[in-house]
Each structure stands twice: as C-alpha cells, then as structure tokens.
C-alpha cells in the first residue's frame, strides 16, 4: 500500500513537471525542469528497488547533463525565446505514440512477476552462481564487469568517442580562427 502511494505521488509530480516543461518558454527554465524530471525518475527507481539505475540517473541525468545543458544554453544568443511554430504535427505524433504505449501496457508482465520472461532466461543462473564464485555481493557489478565485460568495454569506448567528437567539433572553431589569422598575415 505504501509502495503504491509513494509511486502515485511521484508519478503525479512527474506529470506536473512535464506540464510545466511544456508551458515554459525560457530555455534555462526547461533545463532546470528536466533536471527535476530526471531526479523524480531516480526516486521512482529507488522505489522500485533498482538502486544502481537510480544512482546513475541521479548522477548522470540530473547532475552532469543539466550542467552541460546550462553551459550550452548560456552560449546561445540572448533574447531569443522558445516559440512553438506549429503545434499540430507534434500533438498528433504525441497522441499516436501514447496510444501505442497504452496498447502495449496490457501485454507487459506485472511488476515483480517471477514468471516474467526477463526473470527466466540467464538471470537465475547469475544470481545463484555469482555470490559463491565471485564473493562480491553486488550482482549488478558482477554482471556489468564480468559476465558482460565486452558490453561495458563497448560502452566505455562509446563515451570516449563521444568526448573526442565534442572536443573535435568545439575546438575546431579556434583552429579555424587561427588559420584565418594566418591567411590575413599572408595577404
């Protein structure tokens, strides 16, 4: 009962936040509200006992990405407001996507159902085996670093490549200016 009440409270806060994101016209306001949105999401994950996911969501979603969005918004020219030009296509898109999602909900397994497909594949093996073999209590770490070591290597490389891409894109501006300056000197 408590679980349901907390979930209901958090999800209604989430809906209110979404409404204000939709209403807001200032970019910084939208960024702050998105931070609040992800923080509420991480509270929901804690309520669902997914502590690792909640931790990541709080650190990455509402921490770093909000800061980076604020930095990006600060670089935009001032005085420009977020004007929604034509709402009609986006409203149709949103309604159709939510219809599809509502149709799918009835096919999803119930929360905590032990016979859900996700709990029948390799997970029982991992949970049974990992504590005796690794002597590490956190199964998430075992799966992340050992059973799925290749995946995590790929994720690390993805982050590395993303960082490289941003560095190349954003510092090329200064490089261009330097070459322009050199060209002027030649002239």
């Amino acid at each position, binding site marked *: 009962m408590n679980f349901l009440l907390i979930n209901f409270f958090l999800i209604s806060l989430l809906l209110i936040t979404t409404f204000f994101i939709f209403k807001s016209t200032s970019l910084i306001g939208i960024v702050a509200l998105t931070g609040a949105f992800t923080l509420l999401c991480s509270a929901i994950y804690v309520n669902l006992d997914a*502590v*690792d996911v*909640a*931790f*990541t969501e709080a*650190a*990455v979603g509402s*921490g*770093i990405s909000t*800061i*980076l969005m604020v*930095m*990006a918004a*600060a*670089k*935009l*020219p001032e005085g420009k407001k977020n004007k929604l030009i034509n709402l009609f296509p986006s409203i149709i898109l949103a309604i159709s996507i939510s219809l599809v999602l509502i149709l799918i909900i009835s096919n999803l397994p119930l929360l905590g159902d032990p016979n859900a497909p996700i709990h029948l594949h390799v997970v029982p093996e991992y949970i049974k085996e990992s504590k005796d*073999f*690794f*002597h*590490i*209590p*956190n199964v*998430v*770490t*075992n799966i*992340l*670093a*050992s059973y799925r*070591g*290749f995946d*995590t*290597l790929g*994720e*690390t*490389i993805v*982050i*590395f490549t*993303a*960082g*490289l891409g*941003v*560095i190349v894109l*954003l*510092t090329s*501006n*200064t490089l261009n200016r330097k070459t322009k300056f050199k060209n002027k000197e030649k002239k």
Partner: protein
Amino acid sequence: MRDKISSSPVLSVVSKVLFAPIIIFGLYVQFHGDYGPGGGFQAGVIVAAAFILYSMIFGLAKGETLVPVMVNRYLMCVGVLLYAGVGILSIFLDGMYLDYNVLSTNPSSGQHIGIILVELGVGITVATVMIALYHSFASFKVSHE
C-alpha cells in the same frame, strides 16, 4: 562567456569546502561498487562534478591549470587502454579476452582484481570525458554574426 561566473564569497567558500568531500565520495562509490550500488560510471561522474564545480566558481583558467587540457586528453585514453589492457593481459596469461580468472592463482580473487581494474578504467575515462566536455563547452566562443 565571462571567465568568472561568480565572485560571491559564499559560493567560493562553499565550493572550497565541498571539493574534497565530493572527490572522497566519488572514490568511495568507485571502490565500494562491489558491495553496494555504484561503480565506475557513477564514480567518474561524481569526481568530474567536483572539478566542474571548481572551474565554474573560480573560472575556466584556474580549472585548466588544475586539470591541464592535454593531461585530461591523455587520461581519457589511459582509461580505455586500462580496460582493454586487462583483456590483453588475460590473453598473455593463457586465458580468453577479458577472462579475469587467470589474473590470480585463485579464480575468485582473479575476478575481484579484474573487476576493480576494469571499473577503475571506466571511472578514469568517464571522469576525464566529462571534464573535457565541460572545458570545451566553456571555452567555446560563438561568433554572433
């Protein structure tokens, strides 16, 4: 972008006080990831948050003297290479790629060593990539033409 975002003494004192505890919390999350929630990804982001806080309050120039840009870029590569290097080390020790069993005489402690090294690599890469993202956003100058 203004070099110094704020010159308020409250902000600078609070960020000086918070800097070390944030990094210690990051290290706790990094090395306690085997026992509780956490791991390399979260720890990297938390450590990066300390450095980003520092360069937000004291200006980008001071932040770049604390973490030089080139050192940061080398560390980005060091993290990925540490992860991949653990895999290659396990090949040289007659195992398969990223098979941590062979890293120690006992497979269980081998797994432990492997997981800690790999998570350290992830943490280093994530932290330095986040710092690099912040620095390149902050030093980016838009020409409003």
